[in-house]
């Protein structure tokens, strides 16, 4: 490779995440939708499955037996992790979409500090908290085995 004399400008890991074309919040928006849909699909089935508890012990045990086993355990953890992300990111969205944490109208001076920058700490905090909760959930499953 010929040696250049220019200023180093590789994106590094940032390049994996859209290379600056998209902000973190756009990915969080997509993930929030995906987890929402996943949770909804699970939830609609969950209402039906848990209704079996009204019929007595034997029907309940049958229903629980029908949804246990390897694939279901993994699926259950994914539902838990999806909820952890969706709920914690949802807290951020409630705060931000009610106009808090986005800053007041300001005089824009280049390079602009936008509402996206102002609320960025909430987004990072949300990911950290969701990550911790997902980790605790994984621990819980592993502790049982």
């Amino acid at each position: 490779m010929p040696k250049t004399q220019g200023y180093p400008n590789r994106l590094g890991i940032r390049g994996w995440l859209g290379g600056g074309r998209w902000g973190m919040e756009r990915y969080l928006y997509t993930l929030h939708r995906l987890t929402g849909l996943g949770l909804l699909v699970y939830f609609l089935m969950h209402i039906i499955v848990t209704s079996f508890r009204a019929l007595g012990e034997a029907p309940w045990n049958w229903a629980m037996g029908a949804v246990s086993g390897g694939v279901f355990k993994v699926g259950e953890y994914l539902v838990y992790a999806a909820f952890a992300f969706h709920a914690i990111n949802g807290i951020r969205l409630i705060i931000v979409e009610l106009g808090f944490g986005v800053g007041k109208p300001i005089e824009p001076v280049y390079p602009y500090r936008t509402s996206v920058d102002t609320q960025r700490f909430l987004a990072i905090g949300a990911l950290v908290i969701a990550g911790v909760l997902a980790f605790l959930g994984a621990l819980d499953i592993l502790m049982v085995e």
Partner: protein
Amino acid sequence: MNDSTPKEVLYRVRRFEPGRDPSPRWQDFTIPRTPGMTVLDGLWTIKQTLDATLSWRSSCRMGVCGSCGMLINGRARLACNTQLSELGAGVVAVAPLPNFDIIRDLVPDLSPMFDSHAALMPYLIRDDAAEQENPTGEFAQSAEELEHYLQFSYCIKCGCCMAACPTVATDPVYSGPMPLGQAHRYNSDGRDGGFAKRREVLSGPSGPWRCHFAGECSRVCPKGVDPAKAIQLMKRELVWDYIRLRKGHPPAAVVPKPTEIRRRPNIPDAPPRSV
């Protein structure tokens, strides 16, 4: 610039001529690269030396008119505001703004955006039409009140925010960041009394409810208008309005012209004319 800066640059431009092309296609042009060159400069070089049929909109070439919004290397920007040096080495890919129909080459059809904009009544709405037609004084507005909407008034209607918004990408009913930002600009203007009228549009599916704060609009805005901020602030106002917590205010009063004007006593007279 040093010896390692390339002398030429390859432009990959999206071409489309209605009636001739069934669909848009890329066309490559290689042109000289000069210091301080913007994407718009390159387009002019292509038009003047290589292909006179290349079409786009531009006007001020200094980032104030909003005409030259384009998709440059995958991001919505103003062509006049984008230096080649900020794009790095490699191909400069120029395409028309997405989320708008293409009229020709790099020219998008922005009329849906302007229709949504007009539907949100982007002008001062007051009861005293006579005063607005024949003003007798100024509308009272303090510097602090100006700050509430000044940032959003810098919008140059370039359409970059609309191109970047994921909701505008799929939903034609959603007004989009520019019209909604401008609706908030007028709702927050102390001189305006039109909140109830705009709410008729804003409370429905054209309102800010399909915004999910992806934030791309504010990231691409070339003037720092931050439409995402305007939309979230507007959502708060509309929710507060629904639960009856919103404090409405009457539009700013007219400040009559001062009738008694006296000169301050200590100002010295002007020196005699020398010309």
